């Protein structure tokens, strides 16, 4: 799964075609580890309907601060705008994730 940094955030997230789900994570975060395979499976299930990328908050402190990430994992759904369309704090099951994305227009 692509790890986005400040350098390619605009290209890979804001200017991407279609919705992009960003998972803010860190290597030391245990629920993030639990969540990682769920994101992989969700990407596989949804295919081209969404692009899922990750941001390491220790390596991309500015992005984490800009988007006021204070707890991880935090998910943000971007749809071409500077501000995310939706934010979810915490991890969830694959079913919940797919439902949450559907509620926010990714079907």
């Amino acid at each position, binding site marked *: 799964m692509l790890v986005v940094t400040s350098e390619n955030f605009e290209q890979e997230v804001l200017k991407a075609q279609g919705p992009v789900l960003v998972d803010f994570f*860190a290597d*030391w*975060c*245990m*629920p*993030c*580890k*639990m*969540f990682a*395979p*769920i994101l992989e*499976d969700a990407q596989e299930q949804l295919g081209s309907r969404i692009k899922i990328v990750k941001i390491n908050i*220790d390596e991309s402190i500015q992005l984490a601060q800009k988007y*006021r*990430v*204070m*707890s*991880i994992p*935090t998910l943000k759904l971007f749809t071409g705008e500077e501000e995310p369309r939706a934010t979810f*704090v*915490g*991890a*969830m*099951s*694959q*079913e*919940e994730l797919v439902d949450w994305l559907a509620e926010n227009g990714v079907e």
Partner: protein
Amino acid sequence: MENNCLDVIVIGGGPGGYCAALYAARANLSTMVIEKFAPGGQMATTEIVENYPGFVDGINGFELGMQMKKGTERFGVKTKFAEVKSVELDKNPKLIHTAKETFEAKTVILALGAFPRELGLPNEKNLRGRGVSYCATCDGMFYKNKTVVIVGGGNTAVADALFLAKICKKVYLVHRRDELRASKTYMESLKNAENIEFIWSSEVVEILEEDMMVSGVKVKSKKDDSIRMVSCDGIFVAIGNIPNTKLIEGQITLDEAGYVLADETTQTNIPGVFAVGDMRQKPLRQIVTAVADGAVASKYAEEFCL
């Protein structure tokens, strides 16, 4: 339909659930684990597990959960990742419904675990991820050189305090009693931590916010009702757990606190249904007592399947 009926369905993939599955599969029972999120349960959020025997340097809780899952796969156990939406436990076979499928089993081992209790304050939910946290090892790093308040006085609260004291400038521990319930092993380290301050016999009655972020807490003394404002950047809630029993309410008998009424045999009020781990009424909730429950449950499940 007989072919589709399993001997054992375990709901919940924490240590209790996986140990039950391991023993059941080794007893030649067809066994499946249904887990909604990820293997390991609460254990998987623990950075280092140091009280599970056999690991000289301790072991990462997530890693231990993955190992427990893999250990059952050797004996043919499959893990289904899905959320169980409802159960019909008094039927024969017993029916387990997820959003998309229904599974049948002769016996069900409930290993639903527990989740952190909330303070119950009005703005608590909105401030989650904006200063309110239930997991110090997850969110501690966001409070580097900042001031935090921990609420609670048990093992989790004290472990959180010691963990956060290494990262934060100042740690307040607000506890409703005038002494800690935590294990004595923590006491020496607590005494040596210079940046931990105790606020005894007190409760957090309000979370203060500024620009939608936590800015402090209002603490009320239980002794004289006096109020004290404590400025902080984060609040960590560690006031115990609530058993995860919503799924089985009305079918399985619970005690007043919501734990499943089952003795050391793990048998519930419904024959062929067993409850293991943190959700069961018991004096000590640990990984080792959860796995012990799992082994015991599988023995009775085996008897029931004969």
